[in-house]
């Protein structure tokens, strides 16, 4: 991954968060978050449960609203609602912890629904492209099955294909392997790693430290709603600077 542009001033910021704050009632879930994610960059967000990392991920396509601050996607501020917000969301792929495949549609229909209805692609084109994507994530033979007939790992790969079908500028992964049985984590991470290698801009919230080390350009460590540390994977894992990062790493690596 050495050919990838690093997060320098030259690389264009695909996602830009400026002084973002959010409360859930009394709870201050995001505190003054500022973060730039460059085009083609892979940022892995780690941190203890409740640190706000999932919320951060979900603010980028406004599944969570923010109280103050600013979020720019490819230079444009996030629209508040309506058609403009829908259009923006169509450019941001999202992969959920619980897959959220449409339960009443076949796997192929899951992948083609948005291209047909949002991009107004013809059914034949959407189908052809959908089958290509399913082949790419290794489940072409499941095209006509329904989500519940697939294993968790297969469902998550289908969900990745569904997001890719929109040709997103950025992919958000909100704990994509946390709901999977251990033996299925690898197949999903493999797809994500190849996406990263192809230059997809990615924000990945995960507990998979192996993936962070292997595929991330940058690791962002969050705790209590704040970004505590940002560094390259090797710096973060080998020389964490903050006490909180040290404690976090000690707690997860001890086992």
């Amino acid at each position, binding site marked *: 991954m050495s050919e990838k542009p690093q997060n320098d001033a030259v690389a264009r910021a695909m996602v830009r968060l400026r002084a973002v704050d959010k409360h859930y009632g009394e709870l201050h879930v995001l505190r003054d978050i500022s973060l730039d994610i460059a085009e083609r960059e892979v940022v892995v967000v780690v941190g203890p449960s409740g640190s706000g990392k999932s919320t951060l991920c979900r603010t980028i396509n406004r599944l969570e609203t923010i109280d103050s601050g600013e979020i720019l996607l490819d230079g444009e501020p996030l629209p508040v609602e309506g058609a403009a917000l*829908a259009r923006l969301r169509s450019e941001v792929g*999202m992969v959920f912890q619980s897959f959220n495949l449409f339960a009443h549609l076949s796997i192929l229909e899951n992948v083609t629904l948005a291209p047909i209805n*949002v991009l107004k692609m013809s059914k034949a084109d959407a189908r052809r492209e959908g089958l290509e994507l399913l082949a790419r994530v290794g489940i072409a033979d499941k095209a006509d099955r329904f989500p519940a007939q697939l294993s968790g790992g297969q469902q998550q790969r289908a969900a990745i294909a569904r*997001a890719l079908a929109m040709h997103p500028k950025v992919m958000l992964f909100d704990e994509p392997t946390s709901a999977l049985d251990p033996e299925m984590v690898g197949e999903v991470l493999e797809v994500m790693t190849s996406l990263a290698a192809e230059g997809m801009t990615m924000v990945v919230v995960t507990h998979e430290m192996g993936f962070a080390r292997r595929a991330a350009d940058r690791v962002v460590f969050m705790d209590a709603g704040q970004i505590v540390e940002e560094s390259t994977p090797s710096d973060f894992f080998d020389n964490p600077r903050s006490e909180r990062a040290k404690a976090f790493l000690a707690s997860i690596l001890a086992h």
Partner: protein
Amino acid sequence: MEMITENAGLLLDAIGTTLLMVVVAGVGSLILGVLVTVARVSPIPILRRAAFLYVQFFINVPLLALLLLAVFALPDAGLILPLLPTAIIVLTVYESAYVAEAVRSGVNTVAVGQIEASRALGLTLWQTLRLVVIPQSLRAVVQPIGNVMIALAMNTALAAVVGVVELTSRVNKINLVYAQPIEIFTGAGIVYMLIALAIGLAAGRIERKVAILR
């Protein structure tokens, strides 16, 4: 028995009228009921409110009162329609409130994640309702809607009171001539049972076919 053979034409005609009411009001109430549900779960406050009032009104007023109102009061107000269409319209709006209640309970079974996934893909709110929420809701409430349709079939008999010559009205008239109430009304009862059975079986079939695997 000659009571039935001598009146076969009239009876078949009457059964035809009953079935026509069931089918037209059934389809109409399904469409209207889904639209009312969409209004009820929409983010537009005035639509939600109007849909709520619509459902409450038709669930809390007896069908017979509505039929009498439509047949005798509306012409007084200058709105004159033939009897059968009037009865079908009243049945449609009345049953649509029950369909709306059933579909709404289906909406509550749709997981939030399904809606988030749809919105995250860039589908608008209306597309999300049309392509994800309503199809999943309907699949969850096939049996309850079947029960509403059976109730609708039974309720068509009330149209007899306002002068529509459907099955109940026809057998009542025949009985006035032949005075064999047990045979004629039992026969009519069997026809209603067959209609209900057909709807119930159809609902079961549809449910097995469209049920969502979870």
